[in-house]
């Protein structure tokens, strides 16, 4: 019998398996928010340089996803949702994921530096370090506030985009960071209230399982209030304007009402109507981030016509 016949053909990786290491769905949010950060910045960029910058930020985000999958392959194998990922399914070796993660991290940071500036490259490097080391390796398995910490990593891209255009950090970019940062906990905890995860089996202390589902409901409301304050403050800066403010006021009113409904319910109420309020909050959170960042983009696009901004 030749060696070839003993190979399990299902375990041969295709290109899509390597691409899946980069967490493409997370990458789409990274691309969108980084693009907004870059476009709303007051310094114009050459479109090709902007395209390269966004590509670098997306690849850097993807690289941190690959490093995350390398480190977490043990718990990914235990959970139903992540069992089919390239490493636990056996199609990609852990060492390959590590090599891809490190290589793409290096390339994305250096290329962003060459294309734009050291501040943007430094911020991207810190984002990768924060997600891969501080969140994935050090804190995710130790604290039930892991979603909050992971959210910080996901909140950096608009700051990196802004830095790529301006070469610095400002109140506007810090508030865009704060917006995504405060948005992440209600978004994920709403999901965790109606999707039965098996994090407990994997030893990851998720808030609903550690602090209880009632505490999670209260924290969703707390972060939603913080989110409202941050998003309205962003509207008062140089990148805000009447259009953004209108969208922000309307969306925050809807979001706070949805979060209030979730906070006031018990698990029995939630089970009775198949988590209607929790599902509504989750769907609204997706629309919320899309519309608020979209409104910032619209304000910036209207400025040349003398319409956007205050």
């Amino acid at each position, binding site marked *: 019998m030749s060696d070839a016949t003993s190979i399990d*053909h299902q375990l*041969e990786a295709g*290109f899509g398996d390597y691409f899946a290491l980069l967490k493409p769905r997370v990458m789409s949010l990274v691309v969108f928010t980084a693009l907004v950060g870059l476009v709303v910045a007051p310094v114009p960029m050459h479109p*090709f*340089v902007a395209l*390269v910058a966004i590509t670098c930020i997306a690849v850097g985000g993807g690289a941190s996803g690959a490093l995350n999958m390398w480190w977490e392959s043990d718990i990914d194998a235990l959970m139903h949702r992540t069992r089919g990922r390239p490493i636990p399914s056996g199609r990609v070796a852990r060492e390959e994921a590590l090599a891809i993660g490190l290589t793409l991290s290096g390339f994305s940071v250096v290329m962003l530096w060459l294309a734009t500036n050291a501040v943007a490259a430094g911020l991207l490097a810190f984002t990768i370090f924060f997600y891969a080391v501080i969140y994935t390796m050090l804190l995710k398995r130790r604290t039930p506030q892991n979603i909050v910490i992971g959210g910080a990593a996901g909140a950096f891209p608009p700051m990196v985009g802004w830095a790529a255009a301006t070469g610095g950090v400002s109140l506007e970019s810090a508030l865009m960071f704060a917006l995504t940062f405060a948005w992440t906990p209600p978004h994920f905890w709403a999901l965790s209230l109606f999707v039965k995860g098996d994090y407990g089996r994997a030893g990851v202390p998720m808030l609903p399982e550690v602090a209880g589902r009632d505490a999670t409901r209260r924290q969703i409301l707390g972060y939603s209030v913080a989110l409202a304050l941050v998003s309205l403050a962003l509207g008062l800066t140089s990148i805000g304007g009447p259009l953004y403010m209108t969208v922000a006021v309307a969306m925050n009113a809807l979001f706070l009402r949805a979060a209030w409904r979730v906070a006031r319910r018990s698990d029995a109420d939630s089970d009775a109507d198949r988590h209607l309020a929790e599902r509504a909050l989750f769907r609204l959170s997706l629309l919320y981030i899309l519309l608020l960042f979209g409104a910032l983009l619209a304000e910036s696009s209207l400025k040349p016509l003398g319409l956007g901004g205050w």
Partner: protein
Amino acid sequence: MRFHPDHELHRRRASRNYGLGAVLLAFAAMIFGLSLVKARENGVPGLEAARQKAAAAAEAGTTGEGRP
């Protein structure tokens, strides 16, 4: 000579090779495009000096300066 139809294994390897090829081509295009844009925006170091030197040399050639 007849080849056997591609096995799933070959299909996956081909997708890997074509994918990597596309990534490398895109990377090369990115470097090339970035070089053009940067050269246009910032200028090429030493280009102006070289132009002046060439112009001076051409002028010297027409006026006969520097000829033995």
